[in-house]
């Protein structure tokens, strides 16, 4: 309140300019909030409409979509299982790489590394996560695949394969898992560690017996966010996992993922309003639902974990 104001100390300043300014700012902020929400809703709307067109075209039923193991748009076979299978395979391989790497790196950073070292390494981890994913795609194709060929044999490993894509994806998401898990480990109250040391525990016993279990929900949330990133990752699988659907559990075979298919079709010369074109929206909305569910689960886990130490 301005000192020269004649109104009493507790009275509102009702001068028009101030009122208008307040309203303007509030309106502007409101507008931006509405934009971000409406864009999201717009995306969901478009996805839904196009997916509806796909399912109402009569070419494919919902049941067939989710149960058929063949995805051959050319001969009107739209079973999502081969694409889903290879998405899950690449994601699983990625998690097999990123999970252990991430958690061990996190334990090292939070419990063993000096503050100085940690301050230098954490930003580097975050830079690693900022490398364009297409670079990881090349890396998979030109380094990991030849590497796998040398180990397992040139006939065994295809040029495009889900293993190489999965491994590259694992390297991509490992810094994120490490960083998030490290946050969870560092949030464990130091009183707990002191109590454990006071009972005659070694550093390893404190880390694995007290700190990791106390941070387990944060670590699980990190894993789920990592998994959701892997499921939605496109560039690496489009480049390294191969084109053309293939229902196989062999990680050394070429098999297109859901995202890989969407990338290929939407970049190609297929006309609008064809069933092929609409099919990518059906896959898109399914993909969206998977990552949405994963993100909700991780949110719930984090919420529960916050309650413990309040």
């Amino acid at each position, binding site marked *: 309140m301005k000192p020269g104001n004649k109104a009493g100390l507790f009275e509102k300043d009702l001068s028009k300019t101030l009122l208008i300014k307040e309203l303007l700012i509030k309106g502007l902020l409101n507008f931006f909030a509405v934009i971000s929400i409406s864009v999201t809703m717009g995306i969901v709307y478009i996805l839904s409409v196009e997916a509806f067109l796909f399912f109402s075209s009569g070419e494919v039923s919902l049941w067939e979509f989710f149960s058929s193991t063949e995805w051959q748009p050319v001969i009107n076979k739209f079973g999502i299982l081969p694409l889903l299978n290879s998405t899950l395979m690449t994601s699983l391989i990625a998690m097999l790489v990123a999970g252990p790497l991430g958690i061990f790196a996190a334990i090292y950073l939070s419990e063993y590394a000096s503050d100085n070292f940690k301050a230098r390494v954490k930003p580097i981890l975050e830079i690693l996560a900022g490398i364009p994913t297409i670079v990881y795609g090349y890396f998979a194709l030109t380094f990991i695949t030849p590497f796998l060929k040398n180990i397992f044999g040139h006939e065994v490993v295809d040029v495009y394969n889900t293993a190489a894509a999965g491994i590259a994806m694992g390297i991509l998401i490992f810094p994120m898992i490490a960083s998030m898990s490290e946050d969870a480990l560092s949030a464990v109250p130091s*009183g707990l560690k002191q109590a454990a040391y006071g*009972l*005659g525990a070694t550093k390893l016993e404190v880390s694995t017996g007290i700190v990791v279990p106390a941070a387990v929900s944060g670590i699980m949330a990190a894993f789920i966010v990592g998994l959701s990133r892997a499921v939605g990752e496109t560039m690496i699988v489009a480049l390294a996992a191969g084109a053309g659907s293939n229902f196989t559990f062999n990680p050394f075979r070429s098999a297109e993922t859901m995202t890989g298919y969407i990338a290929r079709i939407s970049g190609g010369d297929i006309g609008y309003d064809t069933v092929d074109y609409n099919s990518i929206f059906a896959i898109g909305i399914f993909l969206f639902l998977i990552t949405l569910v994963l993100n909700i689960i991780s949110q719930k886990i984090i919420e529960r974990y916050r309650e413990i130490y309040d």
Partner: protein
Amino acid sequence: MENNNILNLKDLNVYYGAFRAVKDINLNIQKNKITAFIGPSGCGKSTVLRSINRMNDLVEGTKTVGEIIFQDRNIYNRNVDAVSLRKQIGMVFQKPNPFPKSISDNITWGAKINGYKGDMGQLVEESLKSAALWDEVKDKLDENALRLSGGQQQRLCIARTIAVKPEIILMDEPASALDPIATLKIEDLMKTLSKDFTIIIVTHNMQQASRISDYTAFLMTDENRSGHLVEYNRTSKIFINPKNKQTEDYISGRFG
């Protein structure tokens, strides 16, 4: 003073970086007695306590000079393992800090890492009984310890410490976060425990020190903010007939 020493502090100095937090402490702790460290905030009483089981080692930049003799050895000798030392000199902290595990797991965790081979159920029952907590929790041993009240949590922390069967229990203001009734329970418990354990307690509360301790050490800061020992004697002597003017001023509430 009787000569039943379990612990001798000789010219103990503790530095945090360049700052001398504790200066030339000489103290003999009596076995199976309760010794209280009192003094104004920042006088180094917690620092002395934490140097006794080498918890200060965990704070980067801490340096300890001087000797603490326990079982005929200086615990700061290079060949003394701080981890196994802490099995014999346990610690209870200011803020109750049970592990986010079940009540019985809180007791057995320390025993397990120390290679305890006996019956775990029996250990849980014995420890909880010694900590006067058994009757309150015997029907919910599998419940998470964080659901207990503050006073119960603190007694669980004491039970957890007892389960490792240490010689000495260090207590760093164990009742300062608790209400008066829970505090009384802890004090009664300490009296009982002193039959089997040597207890050293840091406290802000002079009534508490006079109620429960057999010996009292009064610490003060000097002009450089370093803590030093002003007077150490039987609690009755310190509180009724202190030799030092500063002690008298402090216990009569003239400062602190």
